[in-house]
Each structure stands twice: as C-alpha cells, then as structure tokens.
C-alpha cells in the first residue's frame, strides 16, 4: 500500500504541474505538444494492457481513437453533453468494440486478432465516410467555447483534463499489473495452454483485457475533436496512432506499467520535435526505424537496459 501512496502523490503532482503550466506558460504550441504526448501516454498504456501483458497485438488503435472521437462528435452535436459524459461514452463504445473484436477472434492465434483490428479500422472508416451526420468525407467542425474560467482557454483546460486521464490510465495499468487479473494475462502470454490447464479462463480474460484496452483508447479519442475544433477521417483514423501506440511500449518495455509511459514521453516528444523541425515523413520514418531497432536488438526495451 505504501507504493500506492507514492504513486498517488506522483499523479497529483503531474496534474498540479499541468494546472501550474496553464497559468505561467505563454506558448500555445507547447500545450498542443503536451496534449498529443499525454494522449499517447494513455494510448500506449492502453495498448500495453492487451499487447504487453497478454501478448496480443492490436494494429487498430486508430479505429478505437476514431470511435471515441466520433462518438463525442455525434453526442456533442446531438445534445451538447459535458466533457466527462463524452469521454465516458467514448470509453463505453471503445470497450464494446474491443470486446466484440475479441470475442470474434481471440479464440484464434494472435495474428488473426491483429489482422482483424486492421479490418475493423477500414470498416469503421468506410462507415464514417458514409455517415453524413458526422461530416462524412468532408469532416466536421465542432463548436465549443474558446475561453475557460479556470485555465484561461478551453484547450488549456483540455490539457489538464488529458493529464488527469493519463494519470488514471497509468493507475489502471499499474493495478492490472499487480492484480490476479494481470497475472492471469501474463500466464496467457507465456503459455496459453498451461494457463488454461491451471484453471485460468483464458478467453474470458483476453476479452476483458481487450475491452479494458479498447475503453481506454476510446476515452483518449473523445477529447480530440474538441481540442482540434475539427475532425475528419484522415486525422481520426491516422495510421500514426496505430504504429506509435505499438512502438512506444516496445521502446519503453512491455512488461511493466512504466514502460509505455517512458516510451510515450520519449517518442512522443521526439515526434513533436521532428515534425516541427524537419518533416512529418521523417517523423514516421524515425518511428518505424526505432520500432524495428528495438524489436530486433532490445526486446525488453529501455526497461531491459535499466534492469541489467
């Protein structure tokens, strides 16, 4: 329990730091970068619950993000619901999608689940293109207030909100890692047959992990249209989400909750720097090369180096 005390103080400190920044930092671009990096902390952490703990690769992070984003867009347009409700709805939809894909394909070998998540991405994108209510192929502008009483601008408020979400996501991952649920996921990753023989209900645990991971991704996607003011299918379904959410845990280390956080902070910051200073193509290239490099040469990620 002492560990949780330290962790909780750390989490509170992160959120307070974000609040402090809204009062002192003037450069709005820094907030944009912070929003993106914090969103990646949530996504990488979510990916790691199924990918790192359980060993099933999800290529469809973009689909879950977009599902959360478009759920928020639809509800915002329909009833102008408050932000926490939008995020909850995004999480619910992401969870349902995760459970559904999981039920369909997690009985099979891992590669089928991976391919199915690619399939889901294209199917959802086609659905969005054909759904005029949320803008179809043109995209949609989201009306939301520009000022915020507490934090100056609405976007600054969203950064604080995202910081809080990141803390919650990491807390969930930490809890999963320590719980019996997390241990059964590790058992499945190491040997599915052995886990089943020891009485772990493997399919049920895998579907639960897929639902939890999907819900966190959906929640992370919900604030996106509000932050950008606008969303279309290319920004929501971006392949960069899929490859980054996978690369970050691989770079940081997949076995422990801190791995994806390290990966997301390092790679996310590097991506922002490279995109601004060089070009977005090089950014993607760097992400891909880092992914390959770590997968080949450092399978345990940065955590593996530290522990040695």
């Amino acid at each position: 329990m002492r560990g949780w005390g330290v962790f909780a103080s750390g989490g509170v400190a992160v959120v307070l730091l974000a609040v402090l920044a809204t009062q002192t930092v003037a450069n709005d671009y820094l907030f944009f970068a912070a929003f993106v990096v914090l969103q990646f902390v949530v996504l990488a952490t979510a990916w790691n619950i199924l990918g790192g703990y359980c060993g099933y690769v999800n290529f469809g992070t973009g689909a879950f993000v977009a599902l959360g984003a478009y759920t928020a867009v639809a509800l915002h347009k329909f009833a102008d619901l408050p932000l926490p409700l939008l995020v909850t709805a995004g999480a619910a939809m992401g969870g349902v999608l995760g459970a559904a894909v999981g039920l369909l394909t997690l009985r099979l070998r891992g590669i089928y689940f991976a391919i199915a998540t690619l399939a889901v991405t294209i199917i959802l994108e086609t659905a969005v293109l054909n759904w005029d209510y949320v803008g179809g192929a043109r995209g949609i502008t989201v009306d939301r207030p520009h000022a915020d009483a507490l934090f100056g601008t609405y976007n600054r408020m969203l950064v604080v909100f995202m910081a809080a979400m990141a803390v919650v996501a990491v807390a969930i991952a930490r809890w999963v890692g320590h719980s019996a649920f997390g241990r059964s996921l590790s058992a499945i990753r190491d040997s599915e047959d052995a886990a089943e023989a020891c009485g772990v209900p493997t399919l049920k645990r895998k579907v639960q992990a897929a639902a939890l991971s999907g819900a966190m991704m959906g929640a992370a996607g919900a604030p996106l249209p509000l932050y950008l003011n606008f969303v279309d299918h290319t920004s929501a379904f971006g392949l960069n989400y899929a490859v980054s959410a996978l690369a970050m845990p691989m770079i940081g280390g997949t076995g422990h909750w801190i791995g994806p956080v390290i990966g997301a902070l390092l790679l996310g910051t590097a991506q922002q720097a490279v995109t601004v200073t060089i070009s977005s193509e090089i950014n993607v290239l760097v992400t891909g090369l880092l992914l390959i490099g770590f997968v080949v040469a450092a399978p345990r990620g940065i955590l593996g180096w530290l522990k040695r």
Partner: protein
Amino acid sequence: MDFELLLDALLAGVLLGGFYAALSLGLAIAFGLLDVPHIAHPAFVLVGAYGAILVQGKFGIDPVLAGLLLAVPFYFFGTAVYRFYHTTFESRGSDAGLRGLAFFFGVAFVVEVLLILAFGIDQRGVRAPYIGRALEIGELRLPWRMVVASAVALVVAGAMMLWLSRTYIGRAVQAVAQDTQALALMGADPVRVKRIAFGVATASVALSGALLVVVGPVEPNMARIYIGKVFAIVVLAGLGSVSGTVLAAVLLGIAESLMLSSPAASWTPAVAFGLLLAVLAFRPQGLFGR
C-alpha cells in the same frame, strides 16, 4: 439490375479476382504454408511495382517482363529476409509472435516512407501496348490490362502448384508446413526449406508488383488498402492452398464488383474486411481449408 449489367459485373469481378490472386499467391506461401506473419507483404508488392517502373524507365521493356527479371533479385532478398527473421524471432520462442508481427508492421511502415522519399507522393505508371485498350466481345468490353493480370496470375498459380506437388523441394515445403519436427527427423533442414520457400514467395511478389502497376498507377500509401484484401483472401482460402487462393480471390473480386454496381457502391472498401471478419468468426479454417 438487368441481366446484361449483372453479366458485366460478374465478368469484371472474375477479372478483378484474377488480379487479386496475383497479389495474394506469395502470401499464401509465406503466411499460409510457412506461418510467417508477413504484414509487410503488400509493401513488398509495392516495391516490386516501383521496381518495374524503374526497370522500364531504364531499358524500356514490357512491365511484366521487368517483373520476371526482378524475380531473381527478389528471390535472394526474400531468403535474406527469412534468414534474418528466423535468427531474430523464430528461433527465440515465447513472445516471438508478438515481436515478429511488430517487426513486419514496422518494415511495412518504413518501406512506405522510403517510397515517398524516393518517388514522391504522386501516382506513377508504366507504358505497355495493352494498357488503355479493351478486348471487345459483342457488347462486352474487357480491359486488356485486367485480362493480362488475370492470365499471368493463373500461370503463376499453375507453376506454384506444379512446383509444390511435383518437385522435391516443393514437397519438402508442404512437409515443413505440415510437421516441421518430422521433417527434421527425416534428415532434412527445415530452416533451409523455409528459406527457399520464402525466397520463392518473395520472387513471385516481384511479378505481383509488376501486375499491380499494369492494372493501374501506384502511389506509396497503397499498400494499406491491400493488407486487408490479401489476408482476407489467404484466410478465406484456407491457409496454404494455392487453388483455394485463386478461388477465394475470384470470390472477393465478384463480391466487390457486384457491390460497386449496386447503390451501396461507397461501401465497397469494407467488403474484403467484412468477409475477413465473418470468416474469422465462423470458419477460421477457411472455405477450402485442409
């Protein structure tokens, strides 16, 4: 829908299916028989397509011939990729599947960006006397480029089937797919067999790429669209069956073609993936599976 339109759509679908078969045959071996999670297959096809463009630009020869020439370097490239994949992932066990998938995903990504950096994001095409003309049979117009692609695909499929069933090494490939350990006990080296098979699969990819650019201009981010289609076909076929791959490809071609000529045409991209999800859910061993 009247009869003539339906016939038109069916024929177009068969041709489209032949083209899809051309794209999928290499994967039927690499993933279907050898169990390599080759997510980068469509990216390699695209490399073949740009290779054909380059070769034609340099020597001015027919793109399909260029694909045949490229098959030789692609074979050695394939054996090198497999050698690397085997020593880095396959022989290490436990979480190799996860990291192998991530590896090929990263490779696909890097290939795409390198193609953008090398060729730009504009569409590129090739020239050939049969591109832009159509074979006219009565009222029907069949574009020659699709006819060529389907015909070459059938030849490649036939050659693959003969290779797998008649040659010593081809039978060894089938044996390694069935039981690696038994093959090792017979004194054969399963890793060598798989290396050769992956080389052959990659060699066929050069030809697939040439056909891809014969059918239409290519652009670097095209591979994404085809990932779902080729995996849908290979899984639908039942892993590793060459004739099944052709049948499944034709099935998908017809389904997409019918969808295209229906009022719901804008949903066509989802057909392959919907089919794939349905197969995974209800018949994971494939339609023509072993």
